[in-house]
């Protein structure tokens, strides 16, 4: 989740797992997020988030057994604004191969892209996201201690910011999992923001594992600080397409 100082943040609200998309597979995801109770004012030229609908299309292509590249199209819809293109990001990712036999899943993604200044004062940003996850029985844990910095915009001299996220969930049935997702932005590592100015969000989520090729995630999140949108509803709907030619003898 790109979290920026004077920026709308709720385009892709997701804690990443360490797995990558298999080669010759395309993952198509639609992230639909509606801010029920958010920022109501224009700040530094950035449009308010309150009652704004964000639709993000994410396309991720598996390259090898241990790498993928993702591409994002961010859009926003709001009364008086219509449907607006917000920006695009590209996100290569590599992971530790299974053959290394690590006890946890580990991958690293790097995401770079542009957002229009009406949606983020920092228009070019770069994120480096380590990803660690582990499934133990019915429990699943993931942590994404992401670092990000501005490449073009007012915060270009602030250096790296710290925007961690984490997830814990429990498999109630083979199909239904439920849990909590945590998202935060502490601002610059060298100058951690006061709690008032930090972004702190907690989502109650459910994942529906209806099929290996479908990804379905719902969540309701609350913002715990003044700088955070107070109530957001999110949904991720994903479908994996296998376009490779497979033979039983492969």
């Amino acid at each position, binding site marked *: 989740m790109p979290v920026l100082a004077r920026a709308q943040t709720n385009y892709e609200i997701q804690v990443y797992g360490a797995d990558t998309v298999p080669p010759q597979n395309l993952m198509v995801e639609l992230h639909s997020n509606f801010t029920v109770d958010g920022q109501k004012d224009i700040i530094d030229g950035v449009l308010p988030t309150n009652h704004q609908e964000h639709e993000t299309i994410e396309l991720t292509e598996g390259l090898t057994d241990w790498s993928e590249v993702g591409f994002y199209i961010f859009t926003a819809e709001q009364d008086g604004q219509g449907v607006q293109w917000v920006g695009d990001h590209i996100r290569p990712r590599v992971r530790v191969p*299974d053959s290394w036999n690590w006890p946890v899943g580990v991958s690293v993604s790097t995401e770079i892209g542009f957002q229009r200044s009406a949606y983020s004062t920092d228009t070019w940003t770069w994120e480096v996201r380590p990803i660690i996850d582990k499934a133990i*029985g019915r429990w699943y844990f993931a942590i994404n201690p992401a670092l990000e910095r501005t490449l073009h915009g007012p915060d270009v001299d602030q250096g790296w910011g710290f925007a961690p996220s984490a997830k814990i969930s429990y498999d109630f049935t083979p199909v239904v999992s439920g849990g909590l997702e945590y998202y935060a932005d502490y601002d610059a590592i060298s100058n951690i923001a006061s709690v008032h100015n930090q972004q702190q969000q907690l989502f109650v989520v459910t994942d529906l594992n209806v099929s290996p090729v479908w990804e379905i995630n719902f969540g309701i999140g609350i913002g715990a600080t003044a700088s955070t949108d107070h109530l957001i509803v999110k949904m991720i709907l994903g479908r994996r397409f296998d376009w490779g030619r497979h033979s039983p003898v492969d």
Partner: protein
Amino acid sequence: MLSRRELLKLSGLAAMSSSLPMIARDSAAARDLAVAHDVSSSAALAAAPDYRLEIAPVTLELSPRHTVRTIAYNGQAPGPLLRFKEGQPVTIDVANHTDRPEIVHWHGLFLPPDVDGAMEEGTPPIAASQTTRYVFTPRPSGFRWYHTHTMAMGDLTLAQYGGQHGLLMIEPRDDPARYDQEFFLVLHDWDGRLLASDDGAMNPSYAVSTINGKVMGAGEPLRVKQGQRVLLHVLNSSPTEVHWVSFAGHGLQVVALDGNPVPTPQTVPMLRLAPAERVCALVEMNNPGVWIFGEVRKHVQAAGMAVVVEYADHSGTAQWRQPADLVWNYERFSTAQVPAAAESHAGSEPAIAIPLVLESKFRGHGAMEAWTINGKSYPDTGSVPLEQGRRYRLQFINKSLDDHPLHLHRHSFELRSLGAPLRTGRGPGTGTGPRVGRGLIKDVVLVDAQTQTEVEFTADNPGATLFHCHQQDHMDLGFMLVFNYA
């Protein structure tokens, strides 16, 4: 044509068997006995056994790039080839040099439960650092094997995930086979790890696959001569994986399944072996060159499961001809007539049906599935009583999404129907799937997911009789049941 014994001396496996301590094989004291008892500190040690197996940790070199630390018999995997005479009592001392209890199962033999090698039947385990003597009269003849029958419970270095498997040939009193040379080929998978799979649970996956404990190119080639008639004895000792193998440039005439002659030998392009299955196939060496015998699936062969076959006076790069599909069915080796062997067991009364519903039990996306038979996991599956002398029809109703290699201890069974698609709901299958002919006698059958397969056997070997899935991860997590009859 050379005699069988002379040719044995030429084969690599003869070297394996010659490493065994073969001592007096006709012990009057042992005749008609079938016992397993601790001899670590008894005077019984004074009587030398016919064979001795040492269970101990060992580092095996699968290839110059792959070594594995495991537990094996006599420092090798597969363990030594043991040749017994059908009906002739044999004594085997098994020394356990590990720090945990062990047990050796004599797979495919009709033994009493106290020596069969399954603690669930009552065979005593071999305590750590102790030696147990197995004394029994081996039967029936054919290609059998021996292996550990312990639990791994998620540790993918233990039990059948390791190197405790070996070859067993029960030689008939009169050997009618005609061949010039024989090879024993053992398929195994190593270095397992648990990975998430599409069925929503964790399943073992393997980094290295071998034939006779070697990745292709790391071991000696099989050396043959043009015009020879070669008999291949192929065993799949993999803890969990089904394998398809083919011999490039050659057909494989299947003559026995699980060590039992088939009524209708057929030449096929490839063999399919589920875990614990054996296939004996004759090959006419009529295509000189250097060839590959190996796994048909590319990724498994790339993991090492292949061996080079080299004709005399030929050299060069080994050739492989990639099949386009996986082809196998049991029924083509059956017959329309009732063979005498099956008829003698059938009796006059109809077989009593025992439905066994096989299902998985979800334990989380980060765990392996548990397994149930008729809704219960072992040991809660209890003991199913049988009546001696009666014929039983086991109905394997596989409602799970996995195929299962099902094994019945101490008995053989006859395949009667295969792969009938299940009706929706919980009832038995339609029974209208591909019907199998008669005469296929086995001790392991692979039951496809969401199908029903039926086998018949005669309760003619009293005592506790273990039935289980031969996948180590499945038997570890409940897929076992004990039949019992006095």
